[in-house]
């Protein structure tokens, strides 16, 4: 069995004392920052990235995976306890999770989120391991035309799932693509849009954009909201473990959530958000058992299902990244950036050239999930304490971590001036109701898209029809067009708007 061989290779790599410690530290730090209100996983990962610079690549990736899961789990914790979704995919968790917390059942809600996520993570890891190898085979058949079309599909997928205006989301992607082109053009050596600033010839750092837009932009926005609007449930987390009754209800919800999440996560465009929404909708449609609390008033299924769905989804969203090298969402885009810093170019070649890294990473994802359970459930009290720290002490610390993180990327104060500019831009985006996640995705994909477009057209001698005459490429483009048509259909369009307004 290939799968078992591969996984045992992976676990062999991941189960060294050193790597376990990195996974542990990553989870701990990720949760620590992720639990802070108003800090989503993107900002968390960007902020903690410098902590991995000094490590060897395998250890760094393992720690990053830990940070990623920690950040996600931290986000759910804030969603349940503070009524603040740290990221879009925990938006639905807020609905029932917060109601449970208000009724003094924050403990079971947090446990349901944690246990559900862990189960979903295990399944997701298995799927990832099983699908990675055959998909990599497919990836080797991809030429530049296919890659270009795949990126179009991914970007369209990302906007379809973004909340708010479709048109604005597409515009944000294009803006991101353009920002990604700043710097030296690899083919001609011309420094584009660099205004003769030497630092800009290397391009704008993705950390600068992530921190400025996601970190500073959101801090400024949070500060403009008066403090008393926040209500934190802290003293009421008494017993953590769900009752037998809770378990009976949770289990089918977790199973359903995991299935939906695993399927939707593979879709380019970041299925985690869609998965959480879909899982919640399905739970809402199933009949209430006698004596069960209605949805929207603190039903445990309303926490367990979306949380397992989004975790399964975020797990399987590693598939397009690891096999094709295409990030399906903003968080994965950040992971690409992180990998390139460690000199790993994500894509099909990683699996063959660096099998211990590839399978080690997959194994460490599972370990990351396990760490979360054994680390976070007992330590939940500590995280809750963190939430009682007044925001006026927290935000200077967050600003500081952002600044230190930005500086340490290149040890250059130029990045600090850039992050200031992007902080202002990020706040402007929030005020204008333009979602920044597609921008980051476009930013990472910009140079890749240009390169593949160039190569495809060079091979076809400038004939654009190459994108539709090659069957794989045509199929991908058709899928993208279909996605667009579906969301633009009036019936679906209204539903989509409803779904995003509901929160």
């Amino acid at each position, binding site marked *: 069995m290939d799968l078992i061989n591969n996984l045992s290779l992976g676990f062999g790599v991941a189960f060294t004392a050193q790597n376990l410690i990195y996974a542990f530290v990553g989870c701990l730090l990720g949760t620590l920052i992720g639990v802070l209100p108003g800090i989503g996983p993107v900002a968390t990962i960007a902020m903690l990235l*410098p*902590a991995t*610079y*000094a490590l060897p690549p395998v250890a760094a990736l393992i720690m990053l995976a830990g940070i990623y899961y920690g950040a996600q789990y931290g986000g759910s914790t804030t969603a349940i306890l503070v009524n603040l979704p740290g990221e879009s995919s925990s938006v639905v968790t807020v609905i029932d999770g917060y109601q449970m917390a208000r009724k003094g059942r924050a403990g079971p809600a947090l446990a349901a989120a944690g246990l559900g996520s862990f189960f979903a993570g295990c399944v997701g890891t298995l799927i990832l391991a099983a699908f990675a190898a055959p998909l990599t085979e497919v990836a080797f058949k991809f030429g530049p035309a296919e890659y270009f079309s795949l990126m179009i599909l991914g970007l369209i997928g990302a906007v379809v799932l973004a909340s708010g*205006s479709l*048109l*604005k989301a597409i*515009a944000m992607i*294009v*803006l991101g*693509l*353009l920002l990604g*082109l700043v710097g030296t*053009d690899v*083919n*001609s050596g*011309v420094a*584009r*849009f660099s205004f003769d600033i030497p630092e800009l010839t290397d391009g704008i750092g993705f950390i600068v954009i992530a921190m400025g837009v996601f970190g*500073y932009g959101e801090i*400024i926005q949070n*500060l*403009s909201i008066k*403090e008393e609007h926040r209500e934190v449930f802290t003293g009421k987390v008494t017993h953590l473990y769900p009752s037998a009754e809770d378990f009976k209800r949770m289990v089918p919800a977790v199973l359903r959530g995991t299935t939906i999440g695993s399927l939707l996560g593979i879709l380019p465009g970041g299925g985690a958000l869609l998965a959480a929404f879909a899982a919640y909708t399905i739970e809402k449609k199933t009949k209430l058992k006698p004596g069960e609390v209605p949805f929207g008033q603190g039903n445990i299924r309303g926490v367990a299902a979306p949380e397992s769905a989004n975790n399964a989804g975020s797990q399987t969203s590693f598939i397009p990244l690891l096999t094709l090298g295409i990030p399906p969402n903003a968080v994965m885009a950040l992971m690409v950036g992180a990998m390139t810093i460690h000199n790993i170019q994500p894509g099909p070649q990683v699996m063959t050239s660096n099998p211990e890294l590839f399978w080690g990473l997959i194994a460490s994802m599972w370990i990351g999930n396990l760490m979360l359970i054994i680390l976070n459930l007992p330590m939940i009290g500590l995280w809750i304490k963190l939430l009682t720290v007044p925001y*006026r*002490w927290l*935000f*200077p*610390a967050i*600003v*500081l971590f*952002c*600044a*230190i993180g930005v*500086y*340490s990327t290149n*040890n*250059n*104060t130029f990045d*600090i*001036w850039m*992050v*200031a500019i992007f*902080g*202002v831009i990020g*706040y*402007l985006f929030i*005020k*204008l*109701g333009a979602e920044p996640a597609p921008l980051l995705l476009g930013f990472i994909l910009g140079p890749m*898209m*240009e390169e593949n*477009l*160039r190569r495809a*057209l*060079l091979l*076809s001698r*400038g*004939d*654009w029809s190459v994108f539709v005459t090659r069957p794989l490429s045509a199929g991908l483009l058709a899928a993208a067009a279909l996605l667009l048509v579906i969301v633009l259909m009036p019936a679906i369009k209204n539903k989509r708007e409803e779904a995003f307004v509901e929160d």
Partner: protein
Amino acid sequence: MKIKSQKDFFSGLMFSAVGAAFALGATTYTVGNGARMGPGYFPLMLGILLAILGAIVMFKALVVETDGGDKIGKFAWKPLFFVIASNVLFGILLGGLPSLKIPAMGLIAAIYGLTVVASLAGERFSLKEVLILATILSIGSYLAFIVLLKLQFPVWPTFITG
């Protein structure tokens, strides 16, 4: 003509302006043709696309009714200014500004500077509290980033360490 959605109108304006600027900038590089793309080709294409998208967003903002005009609302100038200023101050204190002959003061001074200025963005400000916070952050950052992670930072002012 009345603006029916302020947010959309101004985001459309922003997209169009930025798109046009990129497109215009791209024409200063070799554009080339499809088979042999110059460095200007892709940005020119995207810039035009962005400008068009922006125009559509603006047009829709003028035509489609929204509830209450979709106002942008007041800008939070105070947090905006102090958060950004604290960040800039951090950079100046940490690395200095050779062009203005400002020496590098190092990480610890930069942390104090950042914490004090950033705290001004909040609703309440008490210097004593802020100084305690800055001290905690300094010690914590020193241990975490310098001792543990061994990141390369100038920690103390250059005129002390030389």
